[in-house]
């Protein structure tokens, strides 16, 4: 019996640790900062922006002991990116996997991808699929390539070319893993991208019959967004 009680107490303690809400870390902030942040979260929520990533950012700042003005600025900046992401995604920002897609879009904006490139990826994906995961995978791939010092425009256009050829999520994963491997082996980022793009496009073209004609009927040249 004693062991059972101790066991239950340990389980309860572990569960409470897992369930501890992010808001509790905001308790480390001054009352003024808490009020300012709560106002930001409330107004964002009223605009349809999910509160969870904002509360996460507040918890992150509080945990790191960051300057309060900096936390407020970081939350404002995140709200702006999420609002931009919502605008770019349109109705798709409310997909079942909505935050995954919204978060990936906001990350792409933070990484410096031009809104026009993201819009092209969204449009390209929307015409071909109903599942948001390939688009999330595409955005993650673009951000990952930028982190590997590939220019944002080249990264965006390359992934658009792969999406146009109906690359699957697995193929995008393999694509970025191969580029990472080539760079680790000594290739420059641009050479790694060019080499892998050539290989993947050839393989995708060979493996699938592609309808290159968009709904308008005109063929789009390779590389065009």
């Amino acid at each position, binding site marked *: 019996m004693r062991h059972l009680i101790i066991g239950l107490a340990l389980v309860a303690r572990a569960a409470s*640790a*897992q369930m*501890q*809400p*992010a808001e509790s*870390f905001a308790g480390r902030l001054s009352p003024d900062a808490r009020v300012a942040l709560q106002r930001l979260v409330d107004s964002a929520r009223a605009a349809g922006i999910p509160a969870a*990533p904002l*509360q*996460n*950012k507040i*918890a*992150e*700042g509080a*945990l*790191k002991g*960051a*300057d309060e003005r*900096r*936390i407020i*600025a*970081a939350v404002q900046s*995140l709200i702006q990116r999420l609002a931009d992401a919502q605008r770019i995604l349109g109705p798709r920002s409310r997909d079942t996997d909505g935050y*995954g897609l919204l*978060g*990936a879009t906001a*990350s792409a904006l*933070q990484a410096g991808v031009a809104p026009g490139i993201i819009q092209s990826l969204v449009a390209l994906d929307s015409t071909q699929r109903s599942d948001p*995961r390939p688009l*999330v*995978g595409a955005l*993650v791939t673009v*951000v*990952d390539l930028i*982190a590997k010092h590939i220019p944002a425009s080249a990264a965006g256009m390359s992934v658009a070319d792969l999406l146009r050829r109906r690359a*699957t*999520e*697995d*193929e*995008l*994963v*393999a694509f*970025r*893993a*191969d580029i*990472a*491997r*080539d760079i*680790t*082996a*000594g*290739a420059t980022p641009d050479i790694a991208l060019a*080499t*892998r793009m050539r*290989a*993947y496009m*050839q*393989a*995708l073209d*060979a*493996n699938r019959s592609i309808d290159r004609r968009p709904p308008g009927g005109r063929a789009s040249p390779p590389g065009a967004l």
Partner: protein
Amino acid sequence: MRERDASPESPMLQRATELLREIPDVRAEWRAALNARIRQPSFNVRVKARDRSTLRPFAAIAAALVFAGVGIGAALAVRAPGQTTENGLSRTRFAFVAPSASQVSIVGDFNQWNPAAFPLRRSADGRTWVIEVSLRSGRHVYAFVVDGKVARDPTAAEGEDDGLGMPNSVVVVQGT
């Protein structure tokens, strides 16, 4: 070596074989630690910086093959090694070397930056703290909390500005 020396009947070779088969005299705790490491699951291991050098020759060979135009078709649909998925989540292993730490946890966008949520456990070598976390596919930002202090993952391949002046580590999790 002459052929007759290499025959199974050669006494010298038999003695050498026996010597090689003998289990060397090692400390029991060292053997236990080694066995524990062998038993560790190998999937999605976050390779420590010092281990990367052992991968370079293989990576170089792979790249050389690719640049030579070999295996272009085979490059498609290849998952990164060591990925396991379950219920749409991928198990990802994190490790942090901190021999003198008394408590290490991982925080990130997957646990609301809650240092109490995912504590790491000290591994058998007594130096490395480890944990496996189930993550959704995509990019995740994270950090370690070592005895109350936030620390970056020194082995992370990528970092990302957090807007707070303390860059985060990034892990990219494959799709399911």
